């Protein structure tokens, strides 16, 4: 059970993440008026928002330090926030600015913050093997760092994930796999792509503990993660956790969700983890005032980050040619291969 400071921290990250996604949605869509054009506006390209996924992020990351590694998939913001990624530079990255984490080269699916050992990848399940590698490094160096790999329930079928379970297991590496089950992989419901409703059962075939958190609750996630992270940190090997979350928005912005039953969408507010977490805070004696303060802090932080990001200059076009290699240009031929600009 998290103590009340922890509860406050988790709640703070949840409302930060929620407000962040809602504001990004606004910025994104505003730029696409009057007609939705994916490449228009201040945030172009695909945008996958995680409103409704917050408990999976905060409940696990509450147990992590900067030295611990987290890899996230295409829907990374809430996890990045919970992991302590620099919010301003992350926002600048999403807005494609020079001050962004990657100088505008990565965008929202490719956020890297080495200060807190956070990385993500837009290819399903392909963040799992690098997380195993980070755990391997911790193991070889004899530190007590752990690695956490996030994935969606749609990734439960992908070879890269399944192979990673085995590699982590046979070498007893400090990895926690966290599956965010939001019932959907774009338009495909879980039951269409697997017969196993409880994704944590994938662990069974690899002699690994698997646990499912059946409701979208940060405290329940916290408790499951306490066991899993503790196990990893103590050198007792990997675990798999699946968390039931809910996708409050489309798969990406612009997804009309025609495939999704109305009842399900209507249910979303009832299932919203944020009011339910507030109840929990109140039950722990945290006052409405304090909750309001936490909300305001979160809002301010998000607004400040967005404002700051939008003030940053765009990258100079020529920067596109840097960073292919650490020591670019890569040799005598670099000028030759430098293209058509």
């Amino acid at each position, binding site marked *: 059970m998290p103590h009340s400071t922890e509860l406050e921290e988790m709640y703070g990250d949840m409302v930060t993440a929620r407000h962040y996604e809602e504001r990004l949605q606004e910025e994104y869509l505003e730029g696409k008026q009057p007609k*939705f*054009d*994916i*490449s228009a506006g201040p945030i*172009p*390209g*695909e945008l996958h928002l995680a409103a409704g996924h917050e408990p999976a992020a905060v409940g696990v990351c509450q147990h992590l330090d900067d030295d611990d590694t987290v890899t996230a998939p295409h829907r990374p913001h809430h996890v990045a926030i919970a992991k302590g990624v620099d919010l301003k530079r992350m926002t600048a*990255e999403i807005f*494609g*600015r020079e001050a*962004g984490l*990657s100088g*505008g*080269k*990565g*965008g929202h*699916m*490719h956020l890297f913050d080495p200060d807190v050992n956070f990385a993500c*990848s*837009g*290819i*399903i*399940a*392909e963040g799992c093997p690098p997380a195993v590698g980070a755990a391997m490094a911790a193991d070889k160096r004899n530190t007590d760092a752990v690695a956490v790999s996030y994935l969606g329930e*749609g*990734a439960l*079928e*992908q*070879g*890269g994930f399944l192979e990673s379970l085995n590699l982590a297991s046979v070498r007893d590496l400090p990895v926690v796999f966290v599956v965010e089950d939001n019932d959907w*992989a*774009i*338009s*495909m419901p879980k039951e*269409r*792509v*697997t017969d196993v409703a409880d994704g944590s059962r994938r662990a069974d075939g690899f002699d690994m503990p698997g646990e499912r958190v059946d409701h979208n609750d940060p405290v329940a996630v916290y408790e499951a993660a306490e066991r899993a992270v503790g196990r990893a940190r103590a050198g007792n090997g990997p675990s798999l956790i699946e968390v039931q979350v809910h996708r409050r928005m489309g798969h990406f912005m*612009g997804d009309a969700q*025609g*495939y999704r039953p109305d009842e399900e969408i209507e249910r979303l507010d009832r299932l919203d983890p944020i009011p339910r977490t507030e109840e929990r805070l109140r039950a722990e004696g945290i006052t409405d005032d304090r909750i309001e303060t936490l909300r305001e802090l979160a809002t301010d932080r998000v607004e400040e980050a967005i404002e700051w990001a939008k003030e940053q200059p*765009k*990258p*100079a*076009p*020529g*920067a*596109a*040619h840097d960073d*292919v290699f650490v020591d670019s240009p890569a040799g005598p031929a670099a000028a030759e*291969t*430098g*293209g*058509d*600009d």
Partner: protein
Amino acid sequence: MAEATEPEQTPRELTMSRAMVEAIATEMRDDEEVFVMGEDVADYGGIFDSTEGLLEEFGHDRVMDVPISETSFVGAGVGAAQAGMRPIVELMFADFFGVCMDQIYNQMAKNTYMSGGAVNVPMVLMTAVGGGYNDAAQHSQTLYGTFAHLPGMKMVVPSTARDAKGLMHAAVRDDDPVVYMFHKRLMGIGWMPAPDGPKRAVPEEPYTVPFGEADVKREGSDVTVVTLGLHVHRALDAAASLVDDGIDAEVIDLRTLVPLDAETVLESVRKTGHLVVVDEDYRSFGVTGEIVASVAESDLDALEAVERVALPDVPIPYARPLEDEVLPDADDIEAAVETVVE
């Protein structure tokens, strides 16, 4: 090889995605063995509309959503094709080839040869390519060179709705594996504005566009611009504006990379003496090199000057000024043409 059976044009205009779907639907009606499988191809209709409307007519058994496990379902396509069916398998983005390339290049593409022709793999692998909408390094590539380099798969890249339909008919009817790459920017999807070019008068009846026949999309006498996919339209734009400089450019749309119609390119270069090859894929070890080398090797004397316009050898960056910098556009093509004809 499919026969050319192009009928007269009729005035009906279709987007490229509608033209593709029309061909697929016709083939599915005509042949029970044709089916579609991929991620989000059923209820969603394909992320880029490549299967839009098929579910309604053919149901979930013939328009199959499959788990996000490309090795398993691309490989299942290979197995079903070897059993005599004609699967159309969608790999949502070509960029994802890395999770399933063994099934593509070591099984689908090689089984015919490795069996000495005892088996064959009549499968279409359809996949979205291309950038220009800020989707960054893992969702914007064309990878034309990557696929064309490896033997055993035919490879087609339509640039217009008319070609898209004819190439799809030819692909489904072909007894060999065909990689069908459609450029997202050409599909005519509501949320991703397309150049006007690809929306074309498309005949109602089925017809095939034969493989290995490049199409001269614009005749010209001063310079040969060879390209494919989206960049056919960029090249046509460049050609239109080069007229003002008194330069008459010929624009060749390769349409298929395997087989490659080197002959049409060569004939054009013999006429113009100047060659510009334009590619949205990475510059080195790819399409531009092959086209230049094939001309140089066949008739070096015909070649007075040559330039390549391609994506420099960098992953595709996200931010607009960065992506604009590296993706070839009409200005880049104009500049290259001016260099070669100067």
